């Protein structure tokens, strides 16, 4: 039989095909009405006369691999049929885009390069729905994206972390105080309710920041007795931490006590405190505090500086009360100059004569 005879007997057998080639070299033939649904392919066929045979296969864009081509063609095969209702199309679309995010991205990309706008819209909307309601970290994880923005570029301040190690240390101290306060609450200390802020402003601030290691003479109520008791306990353990500490920084009377408080709180739950300390204080600080004070390693020299500044800001609190200051400093440290150089963003500066009352 001739071809023409065949056409008369079985017209449906005489479909036209378009030949397509993906970047991996493989070539396939696709029903013409399906392939032509893609504007890119349509353009290649009509404007350039390509795709009519294997040797003139249309070279598809690089972003269309065989797997994606298959998906795109499935889409086209369904939608190019004219009789379908909107409801049918919508239902197909909903099932069609159910795939993992990676494939969805690839498909969006492929559809875009083939200029198939309805599919681009469908996949883009699906991606948008995945992104909505997520945090930046979650989005990064889903799409495997790097966290390469600097602090300045992010206009939104981050929750509870800053890149200034000084502030971070202060934050840790504050977090400690919060924890202490919570524990005190749990013990239902009655004195807490009797507190009047007017009576104790700076004293209390001091003991807050220094963990109750402030002046013993001034603190009068039973609440502070409890603090003093705790301090005694800490002093027992002090030798523990001081052994480890002396290497790390020059100590003065005030701040190792201050620092010890922090460490001792952490030491209690774990037995091998000293060795842990050697590895880096950050281990101790980071996971225990429930707020996300995520710490990087802090260089010991910088730590030293920070500790000095912590002590100094506690001192500045007292600048109006010289007697108290005397008591504080009675642990035998030398009087340090008020001025000091600070690098970074100048959170602590030279102080004027106001300090020297």
């Amino acid at each position, binding site marked *: 039989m001739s071809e023409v005879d065949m056409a008369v007997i079985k017209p449906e057998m005489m479909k036209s095909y378009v030949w397509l080639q993906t970047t991996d070299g493989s070539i396939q033939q696709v029903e013409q009405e399906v392939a032509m649904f893609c504007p890119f392919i349509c353009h290649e066929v009509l404007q350039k006369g390509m795709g009519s045979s294997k040797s003139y296969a249309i070279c598809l864009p690089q*972003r269309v691999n065989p797997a994606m081509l298959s998906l795109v063609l499935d889409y086209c095969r369904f939608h190019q049929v004219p009789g379908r209702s909107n409801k049918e199309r919508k239902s197909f679309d909903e099932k069609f885009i159910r795939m993992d995010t990676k494939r969805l*991205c690839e498909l*969006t*990309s492929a559809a*875009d390069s083939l200029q198939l706008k309805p599919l*681009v*819209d469908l996949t*883009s*909307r699906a*991606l*948008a*729905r995945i*992104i*909505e309601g997520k945090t*930046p970290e979650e*989005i*990064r994880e889903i*799409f*495997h*994206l790097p966290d390469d*923005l600097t602090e300045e*570029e992010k*206009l*939104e*301040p981050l*929750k*509870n972390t*800053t890149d*200034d190690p000084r*502030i971070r240390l*202060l*934050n840790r101290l*504050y977090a400690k*105080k*919060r924890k202490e*306060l919570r524990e005190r*609450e749990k013990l239902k200390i009655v004195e*807490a*309710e009797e*507190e*009047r*802020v*007017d009576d104790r*402003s*700076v004293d*209390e*601030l001091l003991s*807050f920041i220094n963990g109750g290691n402030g002046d013993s003479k001034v603190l009068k109520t039973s609440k502070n007795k409890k603090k003093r008791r705790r301090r005694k306990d800490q002093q027992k353990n002090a030798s523990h931490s001081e052994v480890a500490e002396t290497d790390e920084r020059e100590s003065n009377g005030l701040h190792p006590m201050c620092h010890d408080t922090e460490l001792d709180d952490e030491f209690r739950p774990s037995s091998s405190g000293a060795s842990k300390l050697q590895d880096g204080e950050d281990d101790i600080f980071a996971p225990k505090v429930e707020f996300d004070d995520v710490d990087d390693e802090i260089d010991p020299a910088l730590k030293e500086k920070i500790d000095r500044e912590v002590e100094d*800001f506690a001192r*500045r*609190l007292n600048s*109006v009360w010289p007697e108290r200051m005397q008591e504080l400093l009675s642990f035998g440290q030398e009087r340090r100059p008020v001025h000091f150089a600070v690098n970074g*963003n100048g*959170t*602590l*500066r030279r*102080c*004027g*004569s*106001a300090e020297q009352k």
Partner: protein
Amino acid sequence: MLRMATSFPEEVLEHVFSFIQSDKDRNAISVVCKSWYEVERWCRRRIFVGNCYAVSPATVVKRFPDVRSVELKGKPHFADFSLVPDGWGGYVYPWIAAMETTYPWLEEIRLKRMVVSDEALELIAKSFKNFKVLVLSSCEGFSTAGLNAIAANCRNLRELDLRESDVEDTSGHWLSHFPDTFTSLVSLNISCLLSEVSFSALERLVGRCPNLRTLRLNRAVPLDRLADLLRRAPQLVELGTGAYSAELRPDVFSNLSGALTGCSELKSLSGFWDVVPSYLPVLYPICSRITSLNLSYATMQNPDLSKLVSQCQSLQRLWVLDCIEDSGLESLGEVCKDLQELRVFPSDLGAEPNVSLTERGLVAVSHRCPNLQSVLYFCRQMTNAALVTIARNRPNMTRFRLCIIEPRTPDYVTLQPLDVGFGAIVEHCKELRRLSLSGLLTDRVFEYIGTHAKKLEMLSVAFAGDSDLGLHHVMSGCESLRKLEIRDCPFGDKALLANATKLETMRSLWMSSCSVSFGACKLLGQKMPRLNVEVIDEREPPESKPESFHVEKLYIYRTVAGTRFDMPGFVWTMDEDAALRKS
């Protein structure tokens, strides 16, 4: 993997972003990574700045080069209660000036609690050729001269909404400045204007704007002219009447009645100053369609009031005076099953109750309206039992503001503090985002709030608590807290300093007539460079006092813009230079 990023062209990413419009999501995607940051900033069309001092206009226009819609908020919320002195700040002019050259295609400006000068309005009118939407909510500083400029120059204006702004009325003729060719108006809200507007200009304007959906008139528009306006705008969806009073005349009545029935799309009503109850029946035929009803200026009593309300079966939002009384609220509960938001305002702030509105009314509504999620309720008495019942009835509550008029009022039955009641609210209503407390309250209520109110974003506190522990509970426990405003509470330095880092995760903290010392403010300002710590004291400079001196008002907000330079004499910012400046 890099492969994912590079194979995804920017236009495609931008296309994906075009389907993400909420500010929260846009903010999230903009800090995912460098490439997303870049793509996002070029295609961001709408920005919302909740505190105009949190970022400088220059930074914003530099980062987002092609913005079409800007929303800014200025003064803290307590400015509504006259706690923020005049001249504090919140000037919009620097923003307009920055956007003048960088956003020539700006279409929308929405401002809340900001100072808007006539110069700013003139600059807007001059700079943005495609300007469409101007919403000035609770703003001040401008006059009708500024409105002249807007009317005359904004050829494509769609919305002019002056809700609750303080406008200096120098002339009612600004409406006539809309040219005869101007037909694009969709929404006009002049309800806050005190003096008359030219009625003929208004009529002509309404008549030539076929897309007008919202028209909120001011009190000066008389009721007998309302029908004329309505006949020119039968497509109206939202109507705010002027004064709802006229002589009792049958022709006025039937005219108005006919005009209203012609407005088949009408869904929202407001206005109703000086209500004459005889004219209420003209509304009855359209009541069943009404979804939003604002009767907060309507000084009418039951039975007229509750009769009107109980015909609005589709009501979703009701703002009403306490004249509705418990009985009116009970019938509201019977009829309005779709009610989502209820605000009951006081008709009289005197010591003695003039109406029979108690906790029972609120309990009834909470029991009967399954969709009720937003409540603002002024009353004179409350019990823990009532609050517990409300909490159990409505675990879907998202906004709950209770204002017992007399401070420190206990449960009137048990004479106990209302800690347990509010505790039940935060415990049962897990989606609660906004809460205002009142009545007698100890530190205990704050413990409950800190423990349970994990989604709470805004908390208002007055005359409550015993000690710093109260503040500490809130600041350490409420993870989602963004705005905290406190007045007349015994909260001091400890809790504030111990929770200093929390402040960077919030938009702002307001504390007035509390016990925060000047020394603590200074310390906070020095230690936290990303916070502006403003001490507001109209009495005398805080620096002239000892450090233990309690500041009158304290406003702390996070910012990347540093100290602002437009502060009046009674506002001091504590920063690292504070120590220097003192000497």
